[in-house]
């Protein structure tokens, strides 16, 4: 199962990014083998439609769940249409690692 987390940086020690569509990076994390990669979010530079564009990217990566601080209305519609689970963290989560642990122990809230 692949989950994706909006991130400010490229490591598991990076700060999670509270915004979805304009997050600079996404950490793609595979729960079956704990392998992960950091990916630049190309939608950051879009003048409009960043939420839809980022959602399309998440869908293309075949993620099962996506975790961010918040989801805009367009992203919400695209992701829920595609059946991708949306979960949120708040600013008490200081690292991507802590978000992943939160996900594994079911502490994250569903959006």
């Amino acid at each position, binding site marked *: 199962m692949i989950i994706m987390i909006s991130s400010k940086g490229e490591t598991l020690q990076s700060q999670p990014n509270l915004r979805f569509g304009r997050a600079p990076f996404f950490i793609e994390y595979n729960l079956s083998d704990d392998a992960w990669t950091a990916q630049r979010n190309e939608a950051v530079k879009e003048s409009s439609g960043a939420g*839809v564009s980022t959602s399309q990217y998440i869908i293309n990566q075949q993620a099962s769940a996506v975790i961010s601080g918040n989801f805009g209305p367009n992203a919400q519609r695209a992701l829920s249409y595609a059946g991708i689970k949306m979960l949120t963290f708040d600013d008490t989560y200081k690292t991507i690692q802590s978000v992943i642990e939160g996900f594994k122990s079911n502490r994250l809230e569903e959006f």
Partner: protein
Amino acid sequence: MNTIKIAVASGKGGTGKTMVATSLAACLDKYYSVQFLDCDVEAPNAHLFLKPEIDSIQSAEILVPEVDQVACTGCGKCVEVCEFHALAQMGDQILLFPQLCHGCGSCQRVCPVNAIHEIPRKIGNLRSGKVRSGIRFHTGDLTISEPMPTPIIRQLKSRITNETRITILDSPPGASCAVVATIHDADFVILVTEPTPFGLHDLKQMLGVLDQTGSPGGVIINRDGIGDVRVEDYLDQTSCPVMMKIPYQAEIAVGLAKGKILSDFIPQYQSEFLNLYKKILEMIEDKEQVGA
């Protein structure tokens, strides 16, 4: 003969665009035929001063794609071509986000199996009417929650007739697409500002826009007496003249708050606005000679 298009813009909001535009229209209407367009479709307010009788209301629409999911092969070309990310693909389904669509029609053109046709979507209204003095009046309003004013502004501007001598365009504030859509083909742009750091900052942005559109422009300093001299100091270094100053005065605020036109309740402005028009004509002619 083409109508003379004079746009009134500002950069900063609340500097007095509509005050200037309505006064100028009212003064010129005594001598010429005038049409007035309130292009601030997100917050139109010129009708509060000109008080037109609206005789026609039409829907403003843009064309958005409708995908025939049976004919669609899910190739994704429409999603790829859309600059505005108004389309997304989930498996073999295409999902439309209507509020992101600019109605450009590219998706329909690239579809290899003609699975896309365009359908109208209402985003607001166009209203036309007549002011008692004779001014032909056009305004638009964008439906609340709709994000895109430019299609309405374009449709509004298609109502401009060349039989009318003068067209006054009351622009939205800012220096965004909506402003460019309003002023890009104007013969002259009046920039209304105030002598404050905010007024100067946003005025500079508008001067940058005029550099791009190529229209001649001039500045009216409103609320003269507040702030400082930096606006004038700055303009001294440009080719853009200060054409008029309107003082910061309680009497003006009181009149405007009652929905009156400045040149009606302080008649000295009638000659000031007529002089402004003469200067505008001279600057348009100068510009044409340089261009020729």
